């Protein structure tokens, strides 16, 4: 198991190195001079030269890459051109919104999807299954911004249980922050839960057809005991894969929901930085997202091995 974990860790480091090289050369080197690109065609030569020096563009590509990676490792992401503040601070601020939101939505999605999927699978072909699958179909089909607006209409405007938008920050305490993130988290979670429930159901149905489930029944387990003791864990692998993918999506892909609820998250930051041609911020956020995807995959790999002993042997 330790050996497996170390191997996955090594592959994580290699992936990150390759990703950083790709990001650096695609964004920084490929399209000509980032300084003139950032300042536009009407820039003054002095301003341009100043920015070039600030960005370190007078150095060679290799030096610049090493300086950039060295900066990333020591927490220095550079300075944003538009905000005139360290990129690390901007990202940290946004991450304090986006990361809890993503985790919150993921937790909700899992909590909804597992029971729904298990319920549907255990009642295959019966009314409960058909109803549940109809509901998930709807959950996948409804656009999440429309759903988000409905949530605002009902829970913020009519019932006044939640604020319609904005984020109070964590200074007012954990529960106040969580309360503020609830509507966006629900809006994000439901479509994900619908997908996850469908995956859970089909994966569990595959397992229920396996020979060892029949063996479990022949031992004297009831259908329900067999499902919980032998079915569920075997059905987890595809579900873990989807959860891993969903987290990465939730972290950065929530721009529409952030827009609807007026949340200062990463998605909006990327969008604004691209509009403002603030390449340093874009580069850093992209690297951060790549980092999170790779780390999540690493965690999912470890989870696979925790679930399935056969994978612990695999190299």
């Amino acid at each position: 198991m330790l050996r497996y974990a170390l191997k996955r860790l090594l592959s994580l480091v290699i992936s990150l190195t390759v990703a950083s090289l790709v990001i650096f050369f695609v964004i920084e080197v490929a399209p000509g001079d980032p300084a003139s690109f950032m300042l536009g065609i009407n820039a003054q030569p002095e301003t341009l030269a100043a920015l070039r020096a600030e960005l370190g563009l007078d150095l060679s590509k290799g030096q610049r890459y090493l300086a950039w990676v060295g900066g990333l490792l020591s927490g220095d992401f550079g300075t944003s051109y538009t905000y005139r503040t360290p990129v690390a601070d901007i990202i940290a601020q946004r991450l304090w919104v986006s990361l809890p939101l993503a985790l919150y939505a993921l937790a909700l999605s899992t909590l909804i999807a597992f029971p729904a999927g298990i319920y549907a699978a255990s009642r295959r072909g019966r009314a409960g299954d058909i109803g549940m699958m109809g509901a998930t179909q709807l959950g996948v089909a409804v656009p999440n911004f429309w759903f988000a607006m409905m949530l605002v209409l009902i829970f913020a405007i009519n019932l006044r249980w939640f604020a319609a938008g904005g984020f109070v920050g964590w200074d007012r305490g954990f529960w106040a922050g969580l309360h503020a993130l609830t509507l966006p988290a629900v809006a994000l979670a439901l479509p994900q839960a619908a997908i996850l429930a469908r995956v859970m159901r089909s994966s569990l149905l595959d397992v229920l057809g396996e020979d060892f489930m029949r063996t479990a029944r022949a031992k004297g387990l009831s259908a329900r005991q067999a499902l919980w003791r032998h079915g569920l864990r075997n059905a987890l692998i595809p579900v873990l894969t989807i959860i891993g993918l969903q987290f990465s999506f939730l972290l950065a892909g929530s721009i529409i929901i952030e827009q609807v609820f007026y949340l200062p998250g990463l998605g909006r930051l990327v969008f604004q930085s691209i509009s403002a041609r603030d390449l340093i911020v874009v580069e850093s956020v992209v690297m951060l997202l790549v980092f999170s995807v790779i780390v999540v995959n690493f965690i999912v790999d470890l989870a696979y091995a925790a679930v399935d002993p056969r994978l612990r042997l695999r190299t």
Partner: protein
Amino acid sequence: MSLLEISNLSLSIYETEILHDVSLAIETGEIVAITGESGSGKSMTALATMQLLPKGAHTTGQIMLRGKDLTQLDEAALCKLRGNEVGMVFQEPMTALNPLHTIGRQVAEAIRIHNPALGRVEAETRAAKTLTRVGLPGDQFPLSRFPHELSGGQRQRVVIAMAIARHPRLLIADEPTTALDVTTQAQILDLLKTLAKEDGMGLLMITHDLAVVADMADRIVVMRQGEVVEQGETKHLLTHMTHPYTKMLFEASAHQVSLPEAPSPQPLLNVENVTRDYKLPRKTLFGAPGHFRAVNNVSFDLQRGERLGLVGESGCGKSALTRAILGLEQVQSGTITLNGAPVFTDTKPNLNVRRKMQVVFQDPYGSFNPRHRVDRLITEPFYLLPDPPAGAARAKAIDEALIAIGLSPADAQKYIHEFSGGQRQRIAIARALIIKPELILFDEAVSALDVSVRAQILDLLADLCEAYALSYLFISHDLSVVRTITDRVLVMKSGEIVEDGPTEDVFQSPRHPYTRDLIAAARMLPSVEQEHAHAHPG
């Protein structure tokens, strides 16, 4: 009162009738075998006894286990009964165990589910005892083993341990050795027999293998299409079988064909010092990957018109050798030539040679594209030809091939699902014959077929030998088939050919100890006409 008494059992799944008026009984300590071909309802009878029937099943009649009618019990009572009074062993040991749980946990579960008051430690102690009993002693097979760390035979022992852990009165074994090699099969059958005797269990064996039936059972029940056609005490039934179906079944199992004389030897296929290695996954990240030597320095010749057999157990390298001969994979050393031309040149198969060889696979269901019609399926080898026949020539070739294998030219326009398993295997042979190959490889080509169908296919092969002077390599684990359908036989073990000689000589007086083990382990059917006293000893 019998241990188990099934009377007038009928079973339908939705509207389809599966069993009709089945009656049979098992006494304590008795071994009863239900036999029959696929679709005879023998497995359904077993599942009905466990009351583990598929959705939509409806039964009438009685299944009395020690005076209780199982068809009348509710689910909770049945759960108490399964694994406790009735244990069951299944056909496929590779998939019958939960891959995520240790063997100790799975056996202990079978014990604890019926005795929740028992502590975990005590349950594990009992599990260890049961595993020792089935031949998996704790010093070699600790409870912490996972199923994937065991071989097929060892896994079947774990399944048996789960089934007998609670000392059930009745043990049901559904084709328990069909998926195993002959030597393993013999061990598992002996184990089942011993356990039944020691515990005084009734043993209900479901098997299609009549040699196993004749050897093990006290009584035999023969089923066909959901009905019992004949049953009786084994010795009596073997000597006085009355029903024509039973007679046909036993005759087909021991079916002999007479091959025409082989023509004078003339070299066709030459395999010389062939070695085939497969790469193993790397053990360390930067270390060189290891190798598994599937075929080790194998040499043999196949003469024109010769019918050569290749036998061996799973993992012995039969398939690797077959793929190498077909030029599907590159060998690491040695040469394979057909008529002196290599089957593999540089990095790809030599098409000039490839078109002179055809292959027939085991699975008559999986080896055809279901969306193509028969004419397209059997003319596929024409793609190998530089100028494939077209129009009338193509139609003529199709007609000839279909007639040769006993179908009619009109079948060319049908899809493959319209045919039975035996007919599909005939079509597979037609596909091999259509380009008049010089060599055909039969890779377990009759292993998936019922005995009566198998006998017909063997007859067909003998006829085709007469008509086309076929040369073939017949690869099989089934010794009785190889014995009748080949002139010469190779015995393969761990990648090497350990014995090579005329078939009858090898079977009569095997020289290599492994060949002797194989022949001893294979249960041979006692000759039906003989008095039972003369039947083979064991």
